[in-house]
């Protein structure tokens, strides 16, 4: 079925199988492989995107449900000025091991800091509870969140 969706500010069209998830449409039809496909059941958060501004697992959104809606993916974060501060913080803190969970975590951390610019450690852990790192590199990821929060704080 035809789906028309605004992705990272640009209206795009695709014609996926009716049961396709938003994740598969992004990756296989729209050439946006940044959102990762791992668990396909909402457990791992690797496919996190924004749907009409809300953080969601794109594997659990039917592609047709995104019709006429706004989607923002990890590909939409870096601008002409370079990487997003959260991406920079992940690089600097060494929060990337195999890298598979990284796009989902970058999106989830960006969402968290937009809602709460200086979250407590407990808030960070709760906000990231839906993102799994199979390398178990959580300490560096928490370091990256603190670094990003400091960098993004208004002076």
């Amino acid at each position, binding site marked *: *079925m035809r789906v028309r969706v605004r992705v990272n500010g640009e209206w795009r069209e695709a014609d996926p*199988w*009716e*049961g396709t*998830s938003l994740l598969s449409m992004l990756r296989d039809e729209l050439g946006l492989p940044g959102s990762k496909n791992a668990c*396909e*059941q*909402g*457990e791992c*958060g690797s496919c*996190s995107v924004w749907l009409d501004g*809300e*953080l*969601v*697992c794109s*594997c*659990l*959104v*039917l592609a*047709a*449900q995104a*019709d006429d809606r706004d989607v923002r993916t990890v590909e939409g974060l870096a601008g002409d000025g370079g990487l997003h501060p959260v991406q920079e913080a992940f690089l600097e803190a060494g929060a990337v091991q195999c890298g598979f969970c990284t796009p989902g975590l970058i999106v*989830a951390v960006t*969402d968290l800091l937009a809602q709460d610019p200086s979250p407590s450690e407990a808030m960070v852990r*709760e*906000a990231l*509870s*839906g*993102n799994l790192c199979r390398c178990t590199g959580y300490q560096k990821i928490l370091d990256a969140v603190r670094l990003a929060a400091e960098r993004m704080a208004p002076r």
Partner: protein
Amino acid sequence: MDVYLPRTLPEALELKARHPEAMPIAGGTDVMVDINFDRHRPTALIDLTRIPELAVWRREDGHIFLGAGVTYTRIMQELPGLRAWFQAARTVGSPQIRNRATVGGNLGTASPAGDALPVIAAHDGEVIMISARGERSLAWHEFLVGVKRNALHPDELIAGVRWRTVRGPGSFSKIGTRNAMVISMAGLCLLLDEEARAVRVALGSVAPTIVRAAEAEAFAAAEIARAGAWDDPKATLSEGTLAEFGERVTGAAKPIDDIRGTARYRRHACVVLGRRALAWALADRRG
């Protein structure tokens, strides 16, 4: 597979009447898992996320109506005063899941582990169902008829759930292997109903459906009365009475051994959850 994207409730009801086999989908946190794993491939899907009537809650005539399409994130943001609801919503999945998953999904899936269901049961909630033929309602225990089975007719949609406002403290707590992203091994909602001088306790994940611990409820109400605590919030119950309440709560459980835990552990969990929940409620009244 056909996908329907109705924009109004009448349009959705007409579609459901014409295609009773169509599976409703809202947050997709249950439905999409089955499709992704090819466990169940519905012949048709009806998207309910664009129907404004399902995504509302309101206070009406001493009651609260909570629409089937209200997400757990919205319950946390918009109904923080409903403590048990807030706590149950917060234990659902992760932020990503709570942004999508709905109360209607818990009712539609009718798993005994649905976190909203003990809260609905403790509130004596009635489930409102709607079809092109009209509207009807069933008490929660008439709606939830078995493991993953409910009393919804094929041409009906779940409109929401409605309950009489309860004045008094309450909580939801659950046991699982993690503090997030976990399917409950045992869950409990306890409410003190100050007006009726009653205690209400509902259990999840420890029987084929949600159960109320009626015998424990009567025991707790009588003990609170005996201690004079309905009139004097400073009055307390002894540790022994709280422990006995926990034992009576677990008497209502009919748990099984499964992949998440043993029946024995679930019975123990009910003792602990019950004892703690009553202690918390009494402490809340002391202020």
